[in-house]
């Protein structure tokens, strides 16, 4: 009898190993090494000077605010802030890099050895199976660097590229994770949490489509149980959380399929193609791994006194994880509701402000669930409004929620108020007030309700017979019919009460 030494290839289970590199644009007023403004959307080359143009003789002078922001980001992610860090030149040639090198940090970054806990956040339940502790993702390093300019490549046969250097020299931090992530879900959760932290700190506006928060992913696969890492591919060109998730899933499937048939993975940089929903190898011409880093002679080592980062540590705001815990503990919100509210500091701040200084947990919970169900539903249906609009209208939404809860508005009236306000071109607070004023109030006139009930019972003798024959579930049908006759404005409790009396009496 033959004994096969190896299991059939199809029985091998693979796991993915994912590390993320995030570039976050710092919200300084001016660039990292010169006094040019960082405003987005200015006319081409309106914000350039000899330093960021790389003109001969110009010398970089580091922006103190950029350093403080990088240190705050490091402190908020449990990093060790290095007392001494060094700027280096990363050499490559590209038209949007005027100096021929990017000033970055190489072997001595400003922050090292941090971590981010994911899992308590979530819609998802990502925890370490055994301990039940939230998954801890290591942060290898955070370093400061300058952004490059922007190239626009001519379309329709134009054989030219157009270079705008307004972005050249805008301060960035690059946050490099350990390869601790295993699924695209974890990767996206990590990114959302990191983004929220940076936005809470006020160091980044977290805008993925404008590119102020960008992510590259290193993905490899290996048989479950193998310690050694597989060959990795770096994926670029993902500009939404969704594309990060899709690109990682695609890449895991691609690499796993290759491994199953025994092919080698080529180490390469691949670009996510959103339209075709696949990753494609970047042409080797565009690649350049030979950066020849060396310490920048124009910049002395950056020294950060312990006193400085202690002072900065004292300025850290309540961070998303702390806020979620507090809202769950003090206001009884569910984890999912707390997570959605806390995604944006403005959203949760307005939520808390609307509830006042001594929030009533019942009211808070009602408002939170109202936001997550009715308001989120309206946001999904009517795309012209955003969570920013909702945040701005929090007091009005609280009023609306209270009116609905106390029975002053029926479900149908509430839906109409939301629809009218969300479709209006006025600011949402004004639109809500107007729609509430027009909604009128529920019909509490017992005579009117009785008249409607009589009409409905007369119009549906069959159903009446069935009800009286014991099929009491027909009650719901009658309630619906009566509400319809009252144009959706009947007081639900009163309608039910009158109907029951008539039916059972």
């Amino acid at each position, binding site marked *: 009898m033959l004994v096969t030494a190896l299991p059939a290839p199809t029985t091998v289970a693979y796991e993915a190993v994912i590390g993320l*590199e995030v570039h976050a644009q710092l919200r300084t007023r001016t660039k990292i090494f010169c006094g040019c403004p960082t405003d987005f959307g200015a006319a081409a080359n309106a914000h350039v000077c000899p330093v960021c143009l790389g003109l001969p003789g110009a010398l970089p002078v580091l922006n103190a605010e950029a350093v403080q922001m990088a240190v705050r980001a490091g402190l908020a992610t449990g990093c060790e802030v290095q007392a001494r860090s060094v700027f280096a030149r990363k050499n490559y040639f590209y038209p949007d890099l005027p100096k021929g090198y990017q000033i970055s940090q190489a072997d001595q970054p400003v922050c090292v050895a941090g971590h981010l806990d994911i899992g308590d956040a979530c819609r998802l339940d990502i925890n370490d199976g055994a301990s039940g502790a939230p998954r801890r993702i290591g942060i290898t390093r955070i370093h400061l660097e300058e952004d490059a300019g922007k190239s626009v490549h001519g379309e329709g046969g134009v054989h*030219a590229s157009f270079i705008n250097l307004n972005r050249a020299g805008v301060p960035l931090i690059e946050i490099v994770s350990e390869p601790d992530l295993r699924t695209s879900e974890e990767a996206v959760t990590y990114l959302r949490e990191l983004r929220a932290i940076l936005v809470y700190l006020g160091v980044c506006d977290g805008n993925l489509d404008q590119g102020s928060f960008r992510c590259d992913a290193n993905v490899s696969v290996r048989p479950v149980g193998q310690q050694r890492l597989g060959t990795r591919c770096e994926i670029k060109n993902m500009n939404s959380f969704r594309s990060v998730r899709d690109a990682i899933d695609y890449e895991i499937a691609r690499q796993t399929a290759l491994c199953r048939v025994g092919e080698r993975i080529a180490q390469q940089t691949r670009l996510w193609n959103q339209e075709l929903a696949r990753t494609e190898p970047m042409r080797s011409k565009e690649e350049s791994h030979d950066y020849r880093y060396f*310490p920048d002679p124009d910049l002395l080592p950056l020294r950060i006194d312990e006193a400085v980062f202690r002072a900065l540590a004292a300025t850290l705001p309540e961070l998303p994880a702390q806020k979620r815990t507090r809202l769950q503990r003090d206001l009884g919100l569910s984890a999912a509701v707390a997570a959605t509210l806390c995604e944006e500091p403005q959203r949760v701040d307005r939520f808390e402000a609307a509830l006042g200084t001594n929030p009533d947990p019942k009211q808070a919970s009602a408002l939170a669930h109202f936001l997550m169900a009715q308001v989120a539903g309206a946001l999904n249906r009517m795309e012209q409004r955003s969570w920013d609009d909702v945040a701005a209208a929090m007091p009005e939404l609280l009023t609306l929620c209270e009116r609905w809860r106390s029975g002053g508005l029926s479900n149908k009236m509430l839906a109409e108020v939301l629809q009218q306000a969300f479709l209006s071109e006025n600011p949402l607070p004004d639109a809500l007030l107007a729609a509430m004023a027009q909604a009128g109030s529920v019909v509490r006139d017992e005579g009117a309700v009785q008249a409607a009930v009589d009409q409905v019972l007369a119009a549906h003798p069959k159903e009446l017979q069935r009800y009286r024959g014991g099929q009491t579930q027909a009650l719901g049908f009658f309630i619906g019919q009566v509400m319809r006759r009252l144009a959706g404005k009947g007081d639900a409790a009163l309608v039910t009460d009158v109907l029951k009396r008539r039916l059972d009496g």
Partner: protein
Amino acid sequence: MIPMEYLSIDSVLHGPFQAPSQASTADRVAHVARLARIELRPEEAAMLGHDLDRILAYVEELRAVDTDAVEPMIHAGDRGLVLRQDVERDGLGAAMATAGAPATEGGAFVVPRVIG
């Protein structure tokens, strides 16, 4: 990601080659020329190769010195970096910034198409 070759000289010495010994002068010149995005005529490559060999031989001579116990000195003096406040200063403006450019359009520098 930080590549293995941190100091530039290693890249020039080893480049993409498996071992330093495999790197011929011509390979090194071609490698550096590619990184610098310059085209060399054969006689220029030969001349630069000659110079590069001499420079690298000198560097090899320096590398022979045992510096294990010596702290690297990158900068003369180590007083720490002087920082500036986050305050705007006037720049050049697009017209002056692009005044020396061979071609401009709408304030942008126009260069030969970079991709595709």
